[in-house]
């Protein structure tokens, strides 16, 4: 800290210069933030504005990044399309995503707690197995997994998407890192109070990794909601389809579908997630701010 105190003297001497530099710095940061936000959002607003245009005007130049027409016909066509039952697909997607998310929050946090805070023979070896399995490209196991699912008689059921996703090595890793950042004293104090391991996990430790849990929950939900390959591989029946497959239906026979309809379909499919996020965002990020570390 010696260097810091020295600096204080120098910086205090040149206050006007520092204010100017601070102002320039502020401006650069704000420009960066705003430009990035625009870049991130522009394609989506282009999609939204295009989905509201007459299909033959999909590729008009100059492009519009805000709605200039309100032709909700595209949405109407998609919703009433005989091929697409958006309510049913919504329910299918939601059901699978919810089950998978809740299951992962439980299984991952339990394992992560054990890996971070309990000592048992082979712990590091087990953890290494988890870690290594996280790095297995899904293509390696796509075929054998397919055969396992087939032998369990689960092809063409939602279980084929749910069961393999009941846990994730990613989640275990994420939460283990979170548990590790908690003060070790918490655990010891609880033990001295005579709490069982389950109580320590459930009542003491779990509430403190809320941010990690909500992050894992969100990403698990999104991962399941947006899963494209799984449904494509396993689901054959129209009435079991999920949203991403429904979008593909909109692309039509040999890709002949109408782009404005595809864009409208994508908008409809991200709308529930957007709604969820508009509420969950507060929860997640404020939850993170209230982390137990401070207490």
């Amino acid at each position, binding site marked *: 800290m010696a260097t810091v105190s020295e600096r204080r003297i120098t910086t205090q001497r040149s206050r006007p210069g520092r204010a100017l530099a601070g102002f320039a710095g502020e401006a650069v940061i704000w420009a960066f933030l705003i430009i990035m936000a625009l870049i991130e959002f522009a394609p989506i607003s282009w999609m939204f504005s295009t989905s509201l245009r007459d299909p033959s005007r999909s590729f008009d130049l100059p492009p519009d990044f805000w709605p200039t027409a309100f032709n909700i016909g595209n949405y109407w066509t998609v919703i009433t399309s005989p091929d697409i039952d958006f309510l049913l697909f919504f329910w299918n997607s939601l059901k699978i995503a919810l089950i998978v998310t809740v299951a992962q929050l439980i*299984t991952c946090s339990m394992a992560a707690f054990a890996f971070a805070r309990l000592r048992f023979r082979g712990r590091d070896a087990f953890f290494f197995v988890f870690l290594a399995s996280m790095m297995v490209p899904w293509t390696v196991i796509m075929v054998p997994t397919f055969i396992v699912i087939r032998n369990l008689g689960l092809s063409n059921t939602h279980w084929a998407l749910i069961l393999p996703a009941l846990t994730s090595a990613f989640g275990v890793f994420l939460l283990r890192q979170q548990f590790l950042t908690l003060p070790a004293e918490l655990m010891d104090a609880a033990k001295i109070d005579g709490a069982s391991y389950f109580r320590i996990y459930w009542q003491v430790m779990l509430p403190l990794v809320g941010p990690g849990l909500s992050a894992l929950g969100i990403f698990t939900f999104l991962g399941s909601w947006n899963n494209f390959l799984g449904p494509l591989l396993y689901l054959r029946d129209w009435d079991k389809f999920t949203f991403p497959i429904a979008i593909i239906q909109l692309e039509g026979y040999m890709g002949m579908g109408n782009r404005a309809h595809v864009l409208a379909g994508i908008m409809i499919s991200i709308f529930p997630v957007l709604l969820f996020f508009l509420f969950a965002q507060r929860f997640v990020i404020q939850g993170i701010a209230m982390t137990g570390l401070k207490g």
Partner: protein
Amino acid sequence: MQTSVSSGMTQTQSTKRRGRSAGLQSREALAGYAFILPALLTLTIFLILPILASAVLIFMEYDILSPAKWVGLANLKRLVSDNRMLLIYRNTLVFVVGATFLNNIGGLMLAMGVNRAMPGVLRYLLRTAIFFPVLTTTASLALVWQFLLTQDRGVINYLLSQIGVDPVPWLSSSTWALRSVILYDVWKSLGFLMVLYLAGLQGIPESLYEAARIDGANRWQLTRYVTLPLITPTAFFAIVISLIGAGQVFDNAFVLTGGGPGDASRLIVLYIYEVGFKRFEMGYAAALSLTLFAILIALTMLQFVMARRWVHYE
């Protein structure tokens, strides 16, 4: 590996626990096994079993319909003479390094930018806009980007032409196709990384900043001596996740460029998928996967070893 994995444990913990009685230890061990059981069981059935099966596949010729045939080392020998694989690994390396670098630098910068005093509404808008792409399906949005990046009459090239830039062959040129795939990945994942880093930033106790401020630290010094060291556990996690994720990216190239032109933007997983599910050469696909697996494992171990030099746990 053993030491590096447990390096997260603080020194005090290990010393304290060394004196425990055997009974307590076995109770703790039982609890440990019970806690990892559900995850372990799922992992065993749907991950480890299939992995073991793939390990056998390497020595087989298998088209998933006819019975598998033992071919010994033929698939491994074929790896050595596969010229396309080399180019595809080069692409993958460029993609992994490029995407990981841009995602993490960008994610951290955005998180630090957003994590500052500003009106709540503004923060909310910024966060929502930047996070929005994460909410969407990779395959669907790649389709949208394909429309935007079209060379002729494409939206982005039109915008560029307004500021005097010649049309860029985003998807059709060998140099640009891979860059487009990287840019799309960064666009899609930046919000994810921002949220991860934001969680890390907000986990840094305010008291540390206060203490530093009392010592007279300016903003740069706060960043340098408080934020950056304390964000390292998050960064470690984020980089490991990005590296592994980038190594396995599939949808991006699959939808955006189809791996083309030629092999210019083909990534290793796309190649494995094509060998396995287009050519139905499962054995060779497994052999290719093995190379990727080995590389990812090596990368991660390297990360863990290096982590001891730059990651600070409290």
